[in-house]
């Protein structure tokens, strides 16, 4: 399945889209849409693209209605691919906060989240990858996070996960943890308060990185349970 959806948002809450299933937006607030999975998948071989354009001073929060479950396609199909590209004009703010993505055993997902922020724009990214359903170890994942700010590269970060590969599920990879949460703020987005920037407890390990530019990245490894408290 090959699908492309484009979203436009302007200041004052005007939001338009041109959608192809399965990436179908539904408006759920003044500056908010939920993506509603309008088909099963993604499966190996699927190529889904979401383009987001935020005009000057536009605000947009994008959530999803349910977790994404990535399952293997037939053996020759290759990975499922999801590409999200967002362009933010000055004063625009994007909050990208989908529900978790579960990469099932034998499945492979490649994602690419590319943000281009003009000077004065800001973005908050909140993603969670879970390796496998209950009783599984999980498949393979490559997640590219690529952010440019004011015309300069700010972050190039490709997380490589594999629930079965000893090199990547061992001490150099996820050390047996089954979920990776990525929280990233760019362009004056405040750091989360309420817990220390770095720590280890209750099976969680996390650190907050000051990027080499106007942004921060928090990475947290943990188990497969727990609520995310996405309403903030």
């Amino acid at each position, binding site marked *: 399945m090959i699908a492309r959806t484009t979203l436009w948002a302007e200041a004052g809450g005007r939001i338009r889209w041109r959608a192809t299933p399965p990436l179908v937006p539904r408006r759920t607030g003044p500056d908010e849409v939920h993506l509603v999975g309008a088909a099963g998948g993604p499966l190996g071989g699927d190529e889904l693209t979401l383009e987001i354009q935020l005009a000057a001073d536009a605000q947009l929060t994008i959530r999803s209605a349910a977790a994404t479950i990535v399952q293997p396609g037939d053996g020759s199909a290759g990975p499922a691919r999801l590409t999200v590209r967002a362009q933010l004009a000055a004063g625009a703010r994007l909050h990208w906060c989908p529900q978790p993505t579960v990469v099932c055993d034998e499945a492979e997902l490649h994602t690419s989240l590319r943000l281009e922020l003009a000077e004065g724009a800001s973005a908050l990214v909140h993603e969670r990858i879970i390796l496998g359903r209950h009783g599984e170890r999980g498949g393979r994942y490559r997640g590219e996070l690529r952010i440019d700010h004011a015309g300069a*590269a700010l972050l190039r970060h490709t997380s490589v996960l594999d629930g079965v590969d000893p090199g990547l599920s061992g001490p150099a990879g996820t050390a047996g943890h089954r979920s990776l949460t990525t929280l990233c703020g760019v362009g004056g987005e405040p750091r989360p308060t309420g817990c220390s920037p770095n720590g280890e407890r209750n099976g969680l390990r996390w650190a907050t990185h000051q*990027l080499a530019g106007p942004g921060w990245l928090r990475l947290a490894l943990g188990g497969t349970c727990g609520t995310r408290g996405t309403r903030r």
Partner: protein
Amino acid sequence: MLTSVLLLADSRLPSGGHGHSGGVEALVERGLLADVNDLTCFLNGRVRTAGLVVGAFAAVAALSRQEWPRWDWERWDAALDVRTTSSALREVSRAQGSALRRTVRLAWPDDPGLRGLDDIDQPHHPLVLGAAVAAAGGGHEQAAALAVHHLVGGAAAAAVRLLGLDPLRVTAAQAGLAPLADDVTAQAASIAARAVADDDSDLLPADTTPMPEIMAELHAAEEVTLFAS
């Protein structure tokens, strides 16, 4: 040429590498890396991710010789900055780069590539290493190989010291990883050649895994450690 390049491969090269464990100490302290099998797993994961990145940047630096003098060191240095998420690891890479630069500037005082690196306050280690390999007469594949070699060697030596592992078995584990390291080296060198030919740093890899990045910050916050990283 071979003798000069081997000098850069020597773990006794005065570049401050002995003060760093490549992330091993934080894992040993938590019982997450306890024996030679764990070390082998660790090195396997590191070579394919961090090894690919440092190998590609060392290869890029070695290729700068063809492009000199219109080579812009700052741009490639910044490209490694945006691929090194942890500020603790950026500092480690820059401290080791500066230390290596002092050594190799004295060893090859007239080399224009190395002289060009003087423009950067504290250059990243893989760039200095790659430029030094070129100054020593080596090629970009050798530069990538040396970057991967130091990543593996530094972590292995630290594991021997921290855990009292049998050095013979650790060396055997490193030998077992050599074919993987050679594959990664070839991949890094070929990506670097394309990035330099197209003059596009976005073609360079940014592969990473979460544990080393998280552990780097936790380790940097510890009060007493044997290794700086």
